[in-house]
């Protein structure tokens, strides 16, 4: 039972992360690989406040959210200057930067990581699987609701115009960067909150929890699930949290289990993304740019 609850917690957290990615990419057209770094930032701030500083929970959660917003806005600042492919690579680099800095900073434990004691809120322990599952799923519901609301709001519509054609948007009087900033602030808040949930559940933050693997995973969830709709993130998270766990059950030959898992995971990912680029539910396929001159 605790195993299933654990899976639900991870599903909730990563679903929220994928939802954030969807807000930025599906509506805003900005695909960033930096979510793992923002997530890590939220988690580290939570751990630092709850651990060494013994701060109360009602301080840690808003702090994590604020850091999430701030970090994502930094990413937004870079976004305004770069085209798609460049931006994706720059966010990968930004992620690497975060991972390297955090591993070298003794204030947050450096390579040893930070351990935090059990967090109690009104008699409930945030690290118990049931409570954490409830919180994570609530966060996920919140993110889906936020995405849904956004989709129907005027901001959402403006964002989608910006995504398709920034010049047209400007001619219509839409302030492209303001829209993007708003979207990224919203997604940053979700990611920061997810970091809080993660840190309080796992009780241990370490650079190894926020590697390139996670960075790529979040983007893949958003894409595989489908961009441009709130349910895409949910589907993507369900698929990509369950798949590696499901591989535990497949009877793989003993000596090569780790490698086989890499192969299965990688090829399934590639096949999925190539054969069904809109994702499971998506209504937005990031299309090739009009002036693309690939060999046909």
């Amino acid at each position, binding site marked *: *039972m*605790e*195993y*299933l*609850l*654990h*899976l639900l917690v*991870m599903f909730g957290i990563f679903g929220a992360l994928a939802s954030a990615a969807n807000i930025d990419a599906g509506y805003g057209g900005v695909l960033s690989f930096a979510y793992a770094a923002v997530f890590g930032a939220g988690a580290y701030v939570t751990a630092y406040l709850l651990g060494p500083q013994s701060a109360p929970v009602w301080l840690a959660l808003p702090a994590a959210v604020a850091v999430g917003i701030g970090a994502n806005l930094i990413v937004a600042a870079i976004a305004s200057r770069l085209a798609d492919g460049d931006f994706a690579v720059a966010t990968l680099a930004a992620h690497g930067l975060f991972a*390297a800095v955090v*591993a*070298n900073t003794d204030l947050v434990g*450096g*390579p*040893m*990581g930070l*351990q935090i004691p*059990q967090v109690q809120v009104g008699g409930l322990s945030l*690290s118990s*699987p049931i409570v954490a599952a409830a919180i994570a799923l609530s966060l996920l519901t919140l993110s889906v609701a936020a995405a849904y609301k956004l989709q129907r709001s005027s901001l959402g519509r403006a964002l989608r115009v910006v995504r398709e054609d920034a010049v047209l948007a400007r001619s219509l009087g839409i302030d492209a960067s303001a829209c993007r900033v708003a979207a990224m602030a919203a997604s940053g808040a979700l990611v920061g909150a997810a970091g809080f949930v*993660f840190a309080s559940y*796992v*009780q*241990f933050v*370490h650079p*190894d*929890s926020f*590697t390139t*693997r996670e960075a790529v995973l979040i983007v893949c969830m958003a894409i595989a699930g*489908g961009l441009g709709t709130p349910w895409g993130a949910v*589907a993507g998270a*369900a*698929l990509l949290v*369950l798949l*590696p*766990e*499901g591989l*535990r*059950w497949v009877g793989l030959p*003993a*000596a090569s*289990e*780790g*490698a086989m*898992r*890499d192969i299965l995971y990688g090829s399934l990912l590639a096949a999925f993304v190539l054969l*069904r680029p*809109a*994702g*499971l*539910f*998506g*209504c937005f396929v990031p299309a090739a740019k009009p002036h693309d001159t690939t060999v046909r």
Partner: protein
Amino acid sequence: MKKRGWIILVGLGLLIAGGLWFASTRGWFSSRAPNELTVGVILPLSGDAASYGEKGRRAVEMARDLAAQSNSCGPVPLRVVFEDSAASPATGIAAFRKLRSSDGATVVIGDVVSAVTLALAPLAEEGHTVLLSPTSSAPAITNAGPYTFRIWPSDLAEGTAVAELATSRGLRRIAVMHMNNDYGTAIAGIFERTVRARRGEIVLSAAYNPDTTEFRSTLTRIRAARPDAIYIAGYFADTAVIVRQARALGIDVQLLGTTAIEDEGFLQSAGSAAEGIIYPLATGFDAASTDPAVVRFVTGFRQRFGATPGWVEAAHYDAFNLVCRATAAVAPNDPSSDAIRRYFEGMPPFQGLGGTFSFDRNGDVVKPIVFRTVRDGRFAALR
């Protein structure tokens, strides 16, 4: 398009549900046969630490098969389930929870990597499951609670011993290069403090990431500083590269290493540059020992896997046999995790590949340290 999405999702869901149902009818979910005791083993089988996970896994498989043949774990048969932690704390936690709830593991051996062990310790405490780590070295594990045990000696002992040896040999000005992880940072810190306490001087202290392959910049700086010795606090793959690059740069001072370098891979990778390096043997395992148990282990391992085992394999082998010994002692009456914990706490000295040892009140072990070197391309005792 949406409809197709639903169809695919539902289809996948059915597939997964079907798989799970199938697995449960096959009994893969049932915790254990009424008479069986499950031992979970968590290892980094993929990812950056996969080389260690692979070694550990082989050793546990060998130990399990030998124990099954000789029926040495007592009347209750042991079932071993391996899970991958990918050296990531979150994956390790998933593995642990799966082993505990789905497989009904009574005892978990794991992890190789300290970060994962530290993440698992609170779970072990809260759920009263014994966690035995073969190779985690972080000092924080000492205080991780009564359910967490480990058979890797504390960094404190190793770092102090090397510092004392170095200074007593007249090496007063020492440069330190350490891996930027829990092991390297902790041991280097202890080493530096001890050297300074003994009136030595730390000329330079530089950290490197586990996947670094280019060390020559720091080595150039070390060369200019002309120390008496260089202490390399890392594992065998990176130490081998550092040693080769140092020699190529014309640095011929005394080199000091950690106990982790005693591995066949180190000699292969470092080649002639390894000659003369001094390091402590803190794990207690000497592959060249004439002790019949060690000889049997080394020959058996070579035969089965075609490679010479090192301290990773020996530690995992010992870990399994410790569990085996414990279950043999408690199983007929009370095959529970608490019983195993009490057994470990009061255990008479255990004779393993890593020497004879028992657990102290923190679940740590104390092992004597001897010094070794590389002579004529082989590991040998230091004179």
